[in-house]
């Protein structure tokens, strides 16, 4: 995950996409939920929070 965050940051810097960062951040959090969710015993609790 950290490697991806670093790559996304480098990408935003090199391509002047700073304005895209808030959206990327939200999508990353959502991605973490989607990755951690399935197969985890905590998934029903996490989804309940939403």
């Amino acid at each position, binding site marked *: 995950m950290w*490697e*991806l965050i670093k*790559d*996304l940051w*480098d*990408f935003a810097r*090199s*391509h002047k*996409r700073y*304005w*895209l960062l*808030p*959206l*990327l951040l*939200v*999508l*990353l959090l*959502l*991605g973490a*939920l*989607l*990755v951690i*969710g*399935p*197969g*985890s*015993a*905590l*998934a*029903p*609790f996490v*989804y*309940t929070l*939403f």
Partner: protein
Amino acid sequence: MNILGLSAFYHDSAAALIRDGEIIACAQEERFTRRKNDPAFPRHATRYCLQQAGIGLDAVDYVVFYDKPLLKFDRILQTHLALAPRTLPAFVRSMPVWLKEKLFQKRLIRERLAELGGPLPPLLFAAHHAAHAASAFYPSPYPEAAVLCLDGVGEWATTSAWHGHGHRLTPLWQQDFPHSLGLLYSAFTAYCGFRVNSGEYKLMGLAPYGEPRHVQRILDELIDLKDDGSFRLDLNYFDFAGTRRMTTERFHRLFGGPPREPEGELQQHHMDIAASIQAVTEEIVHRLATTLHRETGLDHLCLAGGVALNCVANGKLRTQGPYRDIWIQPAAGDAGGALGAALLAWHHHLDRPRHPSQPDAMQGALLGPEYDTDTIETTLRQAGARYRRLDPDALDHTVAEALDQGRVVGWFQGRAEFGPRALGNRSILGDPRPPEMQSRINLKIKFRESFRPFAPAVLAEHQAEWFEMERPSPYMLFVSPLKAQHLRPLPQQARGLDKLRHPRSPVAAVTHVDGSARLQSVHPQTHPRFHRLIQAFHRRSGCPMVVNTSFNIRGEPIVLTPRDALRCFARTDMDLLAIGDFLVDKRDQPPELAQRLDAPPPPPEPEHPPLPEATPKRLRQFALSTAAAVVLLFGLLIPWLTAHPIPLWLIAAAGAWALWGLLLPTSLTPLYHGWLRFGLLMGRITTPVILTVVYCLLVTPLGWLRRALGHDPMERRRDPQAASYRRPSPPLSGMDKPF
């Protein structure tokens, strides 16, 4: 130094291995998995490449992926921002795959490679069009050439022009998504009822049955085409930028009706549309190539990208100029990107020199697996097939005799082809002279549409006697008219599919209704065995060519293994199978051969990952984590928020539950699996809801704001005064980043 190139995760996955710049092996994953255009990680193809090179992963110095995933994600997000709110369904559908897998491609590739064993080599990334350009230029015979890449879309570029010189590739200019010639052609493919990404050949084959009566309509309404070949699509007619559909209601109104159903009746209307978009495509390709020639002054052109498989356009470009000659990557689609990525790493990233070879460096595109005599015989014996073993000369003689008698032969020899064409190692062959041969092979052997033409594989030394194109066409990538003296006139009243009933030449099965043929010239230097076979047929029949079509049936990949070949042979009306040194005659076979070889269809991709195995450790974790979550959520958080007392009974129950799990973990197995399934179900319900909220609260307002500030990454505005829509390409980026 060994470099492994990979293309994967979209369509037509492949692997390619080069050693010190020389191509060792290339293969498409679909041939192994038997799933047409398989997008999965090319595990089997990679394993084969390593095996062919005689190395393990530990001897690979670099792995190169054929595309830059973060740039592609950038394009997808910007498309949603530009078109919000109408891309909501596409956003909800596509984002989970991106957020779960495609964004983590580095990790995904490493995990898949780790399954093959050995330490992981450094991972590099080639931009999609750079990989195409490299696949076109580096294996070509030219020291210097102009390079043109045309496809649907990679990251952003849909068309790109390059200057190749020595081992350098310099990007010149490009046109970006959504203004794509590949997607324009695919939109018409879908409208005519064929599948996008595989039905484009059918549309091209259908075109000569129609009249190009819609050309002006396309140019007036759908695209603004400039003199230099650059263009803008009118997105009011196309839906591919944001949704899964290719065309809009407005498009359907313009062409007088809804899209044809996939197996619906082919009407003259569809043929006219096919002819029209084919004519427009040829015009665009010609203008782009002419612009590139004018600006570079180079006499040679290299082509790659899916549009470069349009052999009708290629043939006309070669004949009409302005280039002295053209070389096209035989795996011009995404599979070839694997090879291009590896070559780009060698020549561009590592700065290694290039030594062009004649006729090219592709070794006849015969770069796939080969099976030895023992393996073939074992397959035949185990299947209970009756066969004869012959020496190569006797086999050629017998097959030539059978072809001359009108029999259809499966021809399986040597290394498998890389790319979409069977070039004489995994081919079905026939005599091109009988007029009924085309419909017989189409309907009884390939089980495909009767209108589709076949290609001639012709002895190179006799090509000029029959075809207008005299230059080599070893990869079946150019269409050429037959020489006028061989052509018979088409009755003026013949229309549509009725034209099929009028043989256009003495080699009717390989002559399309417009008097052209998709030519494969067979050279003794690059393809000696196939050349000898056609020579034997020529000696018997006086005809220097055979029908050559891919060894498969409709909807299946070309056969790879002896078993694939035997199964295809047994299930169809093929008469003879020449496989290695063995000859299998359909008349000698036991009736149950086909059943014996019937294989179950490849398993469908699981919709969801399998549930994790219920080990005692996992079950204990399950009990402890659910107990902790219940205590935190319902025992502490909710009472605190609602100002209720802490429910001690709940905490006690959670404690008992945790204790149960610690002492008797395996007894929780059914509960554990049921709970995980419940979690998956909740995820399926909740994920679209969360994505919809994100789209409505973040994507749409951000998109509106960007548009209000004048940003339009889709570049929808037409400018009648502009001379061109091209833009200069950025310099070739480094390969160590996924962007």
